[in-house]
């Protein structure tokens, strides 16, 4: 099968389109999350997505309809992590671990009560972008537009809180509100990314492009653009490799992403030898 033949299939076109949109969201948000030392929030929310997917399946909400159940639950959990960090005398990673444990244990109990693990629930664990349906692509498109619009409107506030919460507050920025926007957008992106790489690998979609971009970027805007380029390229190349080599798409996407990161580290050592350590 040659490349043009691959690209002529409708299911591959849908996978590439939805995958690129989701990767764009995750990689841009990832820059803010990594710099705010909230990298693992993706993992925590992914585990909550597992629990909420179990609820959705138990309520007979399948495919795109499951978003009606999972999205609100994961968004609530993201606010829970924020509140635990702000008020609960917990550091960010401990709050993420706590909510993550709640999500995964709720999922296991619900799956067990519902008659054990079924194929649907397991497909969410490892993702299956090639089976994405038309209506899921449309939903991803609209959500992506909404999230990108909010990111554009609040770019400077997000930049300011990533640099320093304290300085942002003294600049009159409502840091609690902006933090809430950041975690809510992350929650939506995690729910969307579940189909792309699965619950197990979602955090890599958030962290790896940002980590790669941080190696080379000379400027905050440049960092966001580089992360977006890495994230989107990884999805496109990963999906094509998975089809040509008959490998799982989710793992292929993550491996390509990691290769980009390694390449960025090497390029950094060549271009900025003095700043490489």
């Amino acid at each position, binding site marked *: 099968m040659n490349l043009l033949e691959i690209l002529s299939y409708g299911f591959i076109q849908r996978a590439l389109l939805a995958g690129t949109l989701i990767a764009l969201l995750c990689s841009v948000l990832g820059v803010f999350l990594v*710099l705010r030392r909230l990298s693992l929030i993706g993992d925590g929310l992914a585990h909550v997505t597992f629990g909420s997917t179990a609820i959705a399946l138990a309520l007979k909400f399948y495919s795109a309809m499951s978003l009606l159940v999972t999205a609100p639950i994961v968004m609530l959990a993201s606010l829970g992590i924020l509140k635990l960090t702000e008020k609960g005398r917990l550091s960010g990673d401990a709050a993420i671990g706590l909510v993550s444990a709640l999500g995964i244990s709720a999922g296991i109990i619900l799956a067990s009560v519902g008659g054990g693990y079924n194929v649907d629930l397991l497909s969410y664990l490892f993702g299956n972008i090639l089976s994405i349906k038309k209506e899921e692509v449309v939903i991803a498109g609209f959500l992506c537009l909404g999230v990108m619009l909010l990111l*554009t*409107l*609040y770019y*400077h*506030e997000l*930049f*300011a809180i*990533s*640099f*320093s919460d*304290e*300085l*942002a*507050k*003294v*600049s*009159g*920025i409502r840091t609690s509100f902006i933090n809430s926007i950041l975690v809510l957008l992350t929650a939506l992106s995690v729910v969307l990314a579940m189909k792309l790489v699965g619950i197990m690998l979602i955090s890599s979609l958030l962290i790896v492009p940002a980590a790669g*971009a*941080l190696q080379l*970027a*000379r*400027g*905050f*805007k*440049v*960092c966001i653009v580089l992360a977006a380029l890495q994230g989107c390229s990884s999805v496109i190349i990963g999906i094509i490799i998975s089809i040509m080599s008959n490998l799982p798409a989710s793992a292929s996407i993550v491996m390509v992403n990691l290769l980009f990161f390694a390449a960025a580290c090497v390029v950094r050592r060549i271009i900025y030898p003095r*700043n490489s350590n």
Partner: protein
Amino acid sequence: MSGEIVRAELLSCSYREGQVLEDISFQVERGDYVGIVGPNGSGKSTLVKALLGLVRISKGSASLFGTPLSNFRNWSKVGYLPQSLHLVNPIFPATVHETVGLGLLSLKRFPKRLNRADNIKIDKTLCELGISELKHKLIGELSGGQLQRVLLARAIVNDPELLVLDEPTAALDPETRDRFYAMIADINNSRGVTVLLVTHDSGAIGEYASKMLYLDKKILFYGSFDEFCCSPEMSSLFGEHSQHLMCHRH
């Protein structure tokens, strides 16, 4: 121009470990350069953070520009320079220009955007502080002294009327520290900016500050530097050293 810029009335703050500030009352007038000094753990940083609404006031009240802190919204009048070593993430990818631009956000309404005039203002501030050549550098690539000046540029780019500095020279060598104090004194004199500066270094700051506030959970002294050196409270605290402080100034 005269007027009250900062007022604290019977202000107290406490953490889980206990009371950090107790019944603090003082007033700062427009154009003052106040050096806040005191031993470790005396509540100096907590005091300025309480005045900026960054830590909760457990008792009493504070106001900025005559407005109670809880109602104060005009943050473009305030510039703040925290202890930079704790602040800056060395891998943060922002350039010096982008970092200084953050100081202009308090002047902007939603959606906040920086325009060409803002870029000119950033360049002008960098030039005033003699750091134009750092414009495209990443903040992680700067030395301690350069970083301090960049963060000072961020704090003054919005032309604040009040500048609050929390131990800005903690990581600097004596020579750079003195240059930094002189720079703040120049901003105080030429722009008429009111300055609150927290420092350990009561000797060096005395050379520049118009008033001293000596804190040890309570205010032990608040007044001019000469009064500070001659006051019986300071003589009992510093002994002969209080005279040394005075010599430092003259």
